């Protein structure tokens, strides 16, 4: 037997975290981070499909230039709710609360997160926020755009702004608690030998993400709370009728919401680092640079929010500062892209589904990020701001990037999570469909945007129809593509091939325990004496062998 199989831990015992206890109560009161991850997985998938349904409504409406399918008020609610659900209830919790929750303790060799009860609480808070928001949507919806700009949201909109705001406010605390838990866990609960520079890059990116969560989220929480109160009490510090300044709202909102875009993409970058390294059996090129670039993004990310205010009468000089810093924040992202690419040099690449998503991520994120530079560049942003170019930019990053990374990670860890393999052929097929559908949906929007098509338009001049038809066609393919994994992943939970403990033959800690893992993750606290991504060549296998012997004798 070749050495690579030496990574194999002992055959799985029957008891794992899924079947350790039975009954609804055992799930609803669980303190196991893995079960909480599954709770989250279920809920965010639910919200994703709601958001996706709204997306399809948007695309159907925009098929023709006239606003014929939906009324303008309905359309405004549809895109607002699409944005709110996708951002606050899907993308922000997506990777951290599911994959992160599941893997952060396992990857560092801990039995659980530092505060298991807080972790469960965060899920309940998330659900409470979700229920309030869903209530708001059912009661009549909200039409302010996901950005809630004042004074429209405080004074002029007559939709359910307060209830929605409350939902988001509540939801924010779940994000804060998750971030807090991760930071404390990563600081205090690493297994012996797991030094900072042995951490998988997934952990580094989650650490950076958590920083943003705890530093940014409170600001948007108080902002939304003030907004809601102002609406109820008809007073305001954001209302110009009282000497207030609507631009202050935008500053406070984007102080969080720009960093929040890195909450959305950093975890995905962490996943991609894992995928690239593991499916090419190569340690990440420039590990420290990739690790520190995550922190750099988290810190610099807080300095650039003003690039959303270039045309909103923000001072021209502040605009220049923010533009400069926005270009600076692009550099750490560039470093990551180049290091991932370099990792593949002289590696051994397999074409498994997760790897396809990872490669897709790199390409699409590059396009999304580079088009971010069009917007960070002042003169072009004056033209492009609030056009479909912006819409295309952020979907390239958030769907083409973050969502792809999430799907890749979900497939990659699916055997660990569910104990079953997903069907590889279907997986590759779906990845391809999604890739094609995605590009067809959003590439035309760049052109429509530069031609001047404003966003949040329910009806538009006929000359933009070509692009919209292409986009809607793409969205249909994309929607179809999204359904495939939803179906086969559910299917595989019952009928999939049983997964081995280490189906990909990898060195990471999470693979050194059975699939699915036992409740306490490891039978014994592991002692780490290898570097991250150490795919030892055959002649250096003693280390690996020693580990295996340890597991066996234990």
């Amino acid at each position, binding site marked *: 037997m070749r050495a690579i199989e030496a990574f194999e831990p002992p055959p799985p015992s029957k008891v794992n975290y899924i079947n350790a206890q039975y009954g609804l109560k055992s799930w609803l009161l669980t303190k196991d981070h893995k079960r909480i991850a599954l709770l989250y997985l279920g809920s965010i998938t639910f919200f994703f499909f709601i958001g996706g349904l709204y997306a399809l409504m948007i695309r159907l409406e925009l098929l023709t230039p006239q606003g014929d399918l939906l009324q303008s008020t309905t359309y405004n609610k549809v895109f607002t709710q699409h944005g709110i659900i996708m951002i606050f209830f899907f993308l922000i919790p997506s990777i951290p609360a599911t994959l992160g929750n599941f893997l952060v303790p396992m990857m560092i060799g801990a039995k659980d997160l530092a505060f298991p009860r807080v972790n469960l609480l965060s899920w309940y808070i998330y659900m409470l926020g979700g229920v309030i928001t869903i209530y708001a949507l059912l009661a009549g919806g909200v039409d302010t755009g996901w950005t809630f700009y004042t004074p429209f949201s405080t004074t002029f909109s007559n939709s359910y702004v307060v209830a929605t705001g409350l939902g988001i406010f509540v939801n924010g605390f779940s994000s804060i608690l998750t971030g807090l838990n991760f930071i404390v866990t990563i*600081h205090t609960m690493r297994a012996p030998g797991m030094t900072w520079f042995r951490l998988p890059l997934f952990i580094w990116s989650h650490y950076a993400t958590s920083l943003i969560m705890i*530093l940014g989220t409170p*600001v948007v929480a108080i902002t939304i709370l003030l907004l809601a109160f102002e609406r109820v009490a008809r007073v305001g510090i954001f209302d110009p009728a009282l000497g207030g300044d609507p*631009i*202050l709202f935008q*500053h406070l909102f984007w*102080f969080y919401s720009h960093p929040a875009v890195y909450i959305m993409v950093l975890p995905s970058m962490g996943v991609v680092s894992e995928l690239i390294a593991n499916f090419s059996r190569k340690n990440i090129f420039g590990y420290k640079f990739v690790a520190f670039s995550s922190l750099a993004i988290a810190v610099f990310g*807080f*300095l650039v*929010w*003003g690039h959303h*205010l270039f045309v909103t009468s*923000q*001072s*021209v*000089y*502040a605009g220049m*500062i*923010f533009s400069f810093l926005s270009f600076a924040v692009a550099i750490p992202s560039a470093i990551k892209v180049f290091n991932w690419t370099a990792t593949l040099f002289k590696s051994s690449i397999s074409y498994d589904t997760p790897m396809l998503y990872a490669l897709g991520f790199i390409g699409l994120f590059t396009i999304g990020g580079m088009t971010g530079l069009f917007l960070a560049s002042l003169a072009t942003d004056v033209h492009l701001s609030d056009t479909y170019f912006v819409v295309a930019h952020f979907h390239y990053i958030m769907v083409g990037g973050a969502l792809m990374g999430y799907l890749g990670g979900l497939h990659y860890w699916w055997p660990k999570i569910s104990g079953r393999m997903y069907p590889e052929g279907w997986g590759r097929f779906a990845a391809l469909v999604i890739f094609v559908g995605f590009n067809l949906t959003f590439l035309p929007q760049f052109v429509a945007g530069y031609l001047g098509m404003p966003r949040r338009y329910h009806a538009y001049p006929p000359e933009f129809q070509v692009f919209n038809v292409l986009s809607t066609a793409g969205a249909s393919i994309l929607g179809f593509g999204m359904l495939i994994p939803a179906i086969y992943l559910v299917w595989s939970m019952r009928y999939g091939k049983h997964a081995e403990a280490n189906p990909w033959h990898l060195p990471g800690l999470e693979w050194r325990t059975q699939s699915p893992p036992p409740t306490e993750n490891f039978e014994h606290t592991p002692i780490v004496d290898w570097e991250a991504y150490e795919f030892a060549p055959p002649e250096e296998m003693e280390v690996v062998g020693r580990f295996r012997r340890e597991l066996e004798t234990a």
Partner: protein
Amino acid sequence: MSEHIVPVKVYITIFLVLLAGTLLTVLAAFHDFTYHLGSRTFALNTPIALAIAVTKATFVVLYFMHVRYSTRLVWVIVTSALFWLVILFALTFADYWTRGWFSIGW
């Protein structure tokens, strides 16, 4: 790493310092510290009040909250919180202060 037990005497001292600070800041508030130096005006009431508040807060943080005896990590956390607060203020005011610098044009 282990914890440090602060003697009660220290707490009493800090308590008295804080009370004194409160008294001082109230007294200072009624005095007008606006000075004119040539054509420039220095309104010092706010800086003085803030300086006292910062001093008081520092004492609470260092002694009541034991930061003086804590790990580097806690220091880092405290300073980084302040750092981010500074970012929030500095960059927002970077906008407000430079508004209308050239609105008349050329």
